[in-house]
């Protein structure tokens, strides 16, 4: 016990020492159990086994197809960012084992770079929760979690698929260990030419996409040590490399642009469970290089950031129904690009506290966070979440929170236009959800409706200001987002037959509340690339080892930068057959994407492919290494 605490103290002191030598390290916190469940939130979770059966390659695909999140996708294999509840891309916080993956330079993350199958669990919490998670947790929080099961099984799995436009996707995973130690090694390789044809006009031949090839590789290594039931230590390493060409728009003759991304991410975390307490410490180091090249315009733009993080959380169970958690996060970020005056640094230190009350029908959680960025304090942000069981199978969720997003390093230091006087975007959000379940031994139905409202002030936009001939970042807008989300999930099971029927519908208004000259904006206009409504439906039949699924997605028109992007609808078909024999199990799968061959755009001038196909095989071998 003492040894373990000493180890945790050493981990933490490493960062504190770095704080002395590197000024102030800053961090984001996570992973204490009290934060693992957000009371009053709209929460979804996907296990790795389930994700592997879906026609998705990356987290962007998963959120779009399974959660109805609007993904601003620039094309197959290209940049994909999210808009959750009418927020911007920077309003989705993405966490890897509780630590933020976002580039502190850009303030967002390209979700197409996150493979869907390299995490044991992917979570989505809609709505804000900055009090627990800090900057960026405004529209929603996506979590990628690696975890051990210590099930004493040697497991090897490989999933290979090929598809149209030169698609090749390979996932391999080896898991082995015993009750105390576990190693999980994951490898992912994706590549595609994406040289699809797209529609021009009835009188002209289709045009073939060019300069759209991409290769992406991920290697992840997890090591877990659990000497007893009260202590555990985990190490996570993730190396990612991506090289992709940037295709031309449909009104551009050619493009020679390409982008290389490479990242190394390390996390070391320890956990100590006491009689009435849980202590958790993390230290982490993330380094990411993003290099953009365009030899056509003689442009080479390298950039790099490094972030050292530490987090310490403690949770106490006070009596039967009360839990209190305290935590501290520290981040120290250094970044450089040719567009900064010099290498820049940012120190962030945050303290937070959370209290949870649990009873048979009640759960109440309240949190508070205070963050300091360099020498400036971010206003205190509170959060209150309530879950109340109105009746059996009938729940009410309520959440009120104040949330914020810090200016990115580019917002602050980019030359020209960076503004070191920027204030954080911040504002209050409220949501109310009702969930009704109908359950019997064959039939399960869940209907969930959530209404929300969120106002964000000091919205940061880049624009040309009066008397200033170049673009600059300024707190110039206010945005009011509100809407209603509905989900109907039903399952009917009879012997070997299972029928799943899901429907979803989101109506979201996210409007500017300030008239602006640039970008040209009138009061009450919907944000760019924010659909008023989205809907999706899925019907899936399973019989023994066979699965047939059909999905349809509708998205209303959006306003692009230059023109309106028309509404579109896309269908998908999945056919699978699974087999099991002793230690071996396998699955053959075949997907038809855009089954109705729709010509559509998500981002103006960036065509999406028509009908295309993919298929492959998934093989798993697993064998118990020890008997109890």
């Amino acid at each position, binding site marked *: 016990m003492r040894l373990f605490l000493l180890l945790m103290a050493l981990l933490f002191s490493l960062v504190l020492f770095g704080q002395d030598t590197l000024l102030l390290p800053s961090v984001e916190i996570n992973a204490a159990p009290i934060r693992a469940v957000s009371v009053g939130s709209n929460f979804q979770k996907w296990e790795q086994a389930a994700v592997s059966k879906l026609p998705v390659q990356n987290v962007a695909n998963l959120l779009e197809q399974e959660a109805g999140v609007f993904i601003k996708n620039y094309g197959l294999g290209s940049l994909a960012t999210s808009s959750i509840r009418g927020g911007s891309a920077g309003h989705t916080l993405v966490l890897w084992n509780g630590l933020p993956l976002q580039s502190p330079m850009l303030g967002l993350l390209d979700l197409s770079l996150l493979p869907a199958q390299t995490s044991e669990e992917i979570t989505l919490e809609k709505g804000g929760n900055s009090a627990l998670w800090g900057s960026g947790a405004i529209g929603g929080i996506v979590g990628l979690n690696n975890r051990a099961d210590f099930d004493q099984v040697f497991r090897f799995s490989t999933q290979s698929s090929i598809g149209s436009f030169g698609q090749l996707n390979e996932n391999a995973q080896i898991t082995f260990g015993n009750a105390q130690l576990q190693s999980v090694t994951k490898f992912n390789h994706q590549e595609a030419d994406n040289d699809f044809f797209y529609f021009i006009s009835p009188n002209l031949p289709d045009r073939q996409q060019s300069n759209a090839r991409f290769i992406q590789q991920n290697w992840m290594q997890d090591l877990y040590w659990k000497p007893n039931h009260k202590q555990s230590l985990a190490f996570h390493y993730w190396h990612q490399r991506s090289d992709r060409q940037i295709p031309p728009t449909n009104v*551009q003759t050619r493009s020679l642009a390409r982008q290389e991304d490479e990242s190394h991410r390390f996390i070391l975390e320890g956990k100590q469970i006491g009689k009435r307490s849980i202590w958790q410490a993390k230290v982490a180091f993330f380094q990411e290089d993003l290099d953009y090249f*365009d030899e056509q315009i003689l442009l080479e733009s390298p950039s790099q950031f490094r972030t050292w993080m530490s987090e310490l959380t403690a949770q106490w169970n006070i009596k039967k129904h009360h839990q209190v958690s305290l935590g501290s996060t520290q981040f120290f970020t250094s970044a450089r690009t040719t567009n900064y*005056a010099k290498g820049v640094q940012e120190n962030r230190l945050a303290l937070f506290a959370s209290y949870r009350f649990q009873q048979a029908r009640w759960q109440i959680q309240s949190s508070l966070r205070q963050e300091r960025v360099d020498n400036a304090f971010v206003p205190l942000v509170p959060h209150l979440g309530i879950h109340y069981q109105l009746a059996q199978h009938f729940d009410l969720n309520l959440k009120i929170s104040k949330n914020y997003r810090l200016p990115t390093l580019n917002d602050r230091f980019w*030359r*020209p236009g960076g503004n070191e006087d920027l204030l954080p975007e911040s504002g209050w959000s409220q949501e109310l959800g009702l969930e009704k379940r109908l359950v019997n031994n064959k039939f399960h139905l869940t209907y969930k409706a959530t209404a929300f409202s969120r106002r964000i002030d000091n919205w940061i936009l880049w624009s040309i200001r009066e008397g200033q001939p170049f673009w600059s970042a300024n707190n110039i807008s206010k945005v009011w987002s509100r809407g209603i989300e509905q989900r109907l999930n039903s399952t009917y099971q009879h012997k070997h037959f299972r029928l799943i029927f899901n429907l979803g519908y989101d109506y979201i208004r996210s409007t500017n509340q300030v008239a602006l000259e*640039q*970008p040209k904006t009138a009061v009450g206009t919907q944000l*760019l690339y924010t659909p008023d409504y989205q809907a999706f439906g899925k019907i899936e039949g399973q019989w023994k080892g066979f699965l047939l699924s059909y999905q349809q997605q509708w998205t209303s028109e959006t306003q692009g930068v*230059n023109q309106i992007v028309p509404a579109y609808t896309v269908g998908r078909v999945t056919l699978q057959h699974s087999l099991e024999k002793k230690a071996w199990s396998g699955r053959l799968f075949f997907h038809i994407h855009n089954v109705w061959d729709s010509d559509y755009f998500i981002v103006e001038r960036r065509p999406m492919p028509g009908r295309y196909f993919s298929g492959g095989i998934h093989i798993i071998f697993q064998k118990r290494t020890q008997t109890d």
Partner: protein
Amino acid sequence: MSFILRQKMTGTSKFRHQITTIVGENKINLLCVHKNHSMKLYFTYLLFLASTLLLQAQNIADFEEFEFGDQPFLNGSDGSGGFSSGNIFLPNSFTDAGTFTFWSGWSISSDTDTTTAGFMNQYSAISGSGAEGSSNYAVSFVGGGSIMEVMEGANAVAGFEINNGTYAYLSMLEGDSFAKKFGGVDGNDPDFFLLTIKKFKDGVLSTDSIDFYLADYRFEDNSQDYIIEDWTYVDVTSLGLADSLLFTLTSSDTGVNGMNTPAYFCMDNVETDILMSNRDLSRTVHLNVFPNPTTDYLNFDWSAQNGMLRVFDLQGRLQLEQPLLAGNNQVDVRRLLSQQYVLQLLTKEGMLNRLFWKQ
């Protein structure tokens, strides 16, 4: 331009002719008395007047006097605030924040790169040279609008050569990551890139303007669509007197963030009229030219301000030019052929014409 001819018989066989030429808000009167009138003479007058308007004391700013260092452009990094050439001044705004520099307004360039697309090649003209194959030319990056100041000693701009910059040209031809290829996906989009020129006079912006399409894809027949790639003369005499000209750019490729087409154009050979008559001085200034006819010298006293003195034949061809000085002036006409000529006196206040005979 329009002409008004008034004829009046002043004696038994003499006619008085007054020809008034109107260009914009300017009027030029030529008075003469003849023993006979003939249509040939009228045509001669008309030709003369037209010629005097086009040729009167013009100065050309060709930017050839500028010299360059390591880079083939001058972008105001010396803090000069602009560039003077001929009778114009082209303002430049240059920001040096240590790690980045930014300019708008005007730069002077001798860049010859006509193939590299993008912002890094912002200083070159698509022709790879100045007008008429010259080395230097001006490049404008138009923010809200670029200004050309007409300097003291001149009071109007006659015209200039215009061309696209390589950056804008290739963007319109091929598109880039921000801007569209003109014509759009199928070549039928009615795109345009328009340069609009207005003038400031006494602090008032004119309502009249001159439009020049740097690219025009609005034709029904796509084969007529064009992007300017050669220096093209733009006549702006119709704007008349001006303290400065304002240049603005508009494009069909415009979104909520403004114009996507790169806001650049190039200019060369700016012709300014040093003095342009805005009123007829014959009613306010007494001029006694003597002897008339003359065999060698013309003499007169000039009580108004300094200016320019010119002698034209009746075909409008310039024969002599010399400074016009306040006080006594003498013009040596000994080399002129024996015939009738027009003596033209030009000042900032206006102009005055007299006929005389060389014997």
